[in-house]
């Protein structure tokens, strides 16, 4: 099995105080005597050139620190398959974004031509129905994964200190995903789309005082008109995806910075001790293991 040849910039950094040794071995390119260095073969030279490119970019951007920090960070013991739901949701969103871009190349957002353009896409374009199906069912899959991820976070208590802000961002993302579902649903402009949108719009209108104006704003007028569809299209394609991408960035930043939680039923142990940390720490503080509530 050939040895994994990562460029120097992406290799796992050495532990502090180990003199640049990773896994107990000194780095290859720092060997002292020239004789110890083997004669370069063609394949080796190609690999070296590849490593040089990464090194070139790294020297000019300084990215390796960020990348190695993100890739090689420790996740707590006990991280199980439940923790994949978040990245699965992100991946479903990426699928939606990519299929959405290709659908947008064929779609016409005009009330008279929308239905025809979707018919053309479904029937005449190569793989048109398939891509449209991926986008349609991908939306349902994304919502299911999102709810599963939210449930996992709730039951693991992963929204508590210090991750409150992450939860708030997550709920906003949930709301934005529902808005995507609502606005995107109108675009095929068939009977189901049209009436579901009419009802959703009128639901907005039932809010006191501002409701009627909000409904007018969404609908671009008092009745469903020529610019209603284009407005929904702009919201679905530009406004909300931009907000979602920005918030996902913030969400991921917090995940990397704060770390993912360990499953709540696992207790940590001090090295060399068999007692769980709780008891050890509490014993040291002279307080009961679950904290003294009356002290709040």
């Amino acid at each position, binding site marked *: 099995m050939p040895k994994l040849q990562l460029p120097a910039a992406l290799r796992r950094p050495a532990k502090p105080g180990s003199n640049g040794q990773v896994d107990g071995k000194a780095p290859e390119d720092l060997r002292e005597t020239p004789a110890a260095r083997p004669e370069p073969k063609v394949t080796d030279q190609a690999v070296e050139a590849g490593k040089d490119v990464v090194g070139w970019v790294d020297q000019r951007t300084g990215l390796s620190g960020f990348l190695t920090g993100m890739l090689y960070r420790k996740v707590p013991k006990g991280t199980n398959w439940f923790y994949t739901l978040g990245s699965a949701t992100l991946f479903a969103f990426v699928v939606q974004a990519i299929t959405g871009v290709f659908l947008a190349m064929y779609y016409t957002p005009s*009330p008279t031509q929308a239905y025809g353009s979707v018919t053309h896409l479904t029937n005449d374009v190569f793989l048109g129905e398939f891509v449209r199906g991926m986008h349609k069912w991908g939306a349902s899959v994304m919502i299911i994964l999102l709810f599963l991820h939210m449930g996992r976070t709730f039951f693991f208590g992963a929204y508590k200190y210090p991750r409150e802000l992450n939860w708030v961002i997550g709920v906003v993302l949930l709301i934005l995903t529902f808005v995507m579902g609502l606005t995107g649903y109108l675009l095929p402009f068939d009977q189901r789309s049209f*009436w579901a949108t009419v009802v959703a719009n*009128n*639901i907005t209108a039932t809010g006191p005082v501002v*409701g*009627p104006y909000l409904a*007018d*704003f969404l609908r671009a007028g*008092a009745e469903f008109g020529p*610019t209603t569809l284009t407005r929904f299209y702009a919201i679905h394609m530009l406004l909300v995806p931009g907000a979602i991408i920005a918030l996902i960035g913030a969400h991921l930043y917090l995940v990397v910075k704060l770390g993912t939680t360990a499953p709540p039923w696992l207790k940590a142990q001090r090295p060399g001790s068999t007692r769980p940390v709780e008891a050890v720490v509490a014993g040291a503080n002279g307080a009961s293991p679950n904290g003294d509530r009356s002290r709040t």
Partner: protein
Amino acid sequence: MTRRRVFTVAVQGLGGLAGAAIVLPAVGFAVAPIFEREDDRWEPIGPPDDFTAEAYKAAVITIVDGIGEAGKTTVYVRKGSEELGEDPDGYIAISTRCAHLGCPVRFVEAAGNFICPCHGGVYDFEGKVIGGPPVRPLDRFQTRVRGGKVEIGPRYSVTSQLEPVRSRDPGEFTGGIWEYLYPPRPSTPSPP
């Protein structure tokens, strides 16, 4: 008053101005449709002999121009009935837009009622609510006779006593204090 302070305030002021110069027109652009009002549309639907006071006749009119099929709607029209205290030379045009959330209602001849398929709303012959969640009677359209043809005009809403008010979206209560909680919008025409 140091140099630094003057520059700080100036930066904030100019930055605010530049930001406003970009954002305000954009917001105005997005919000403008709330304040635009289209001219009233009157559409002929047939000679007066086509309509009776006992039963409704469905007619299709265009309420928004320029978007083809999506701009049309169905209206149920009948002559005014003396028994119900209406002007026998006038016409009543009832909208098919349910006053609960806007689903299309249909008139059931056997019962003399309008029923809505979405959440089970039921209206009587005049359009008043007799069952289900709708919050006010069905909207109506203005009518007139011109050149020997019955014409349908802009939409208006009614209170539970069938008094006309400016057109409201489905789900909004009308009459009394509700006129302030659900204010009329500039984009709708005045009621008759």
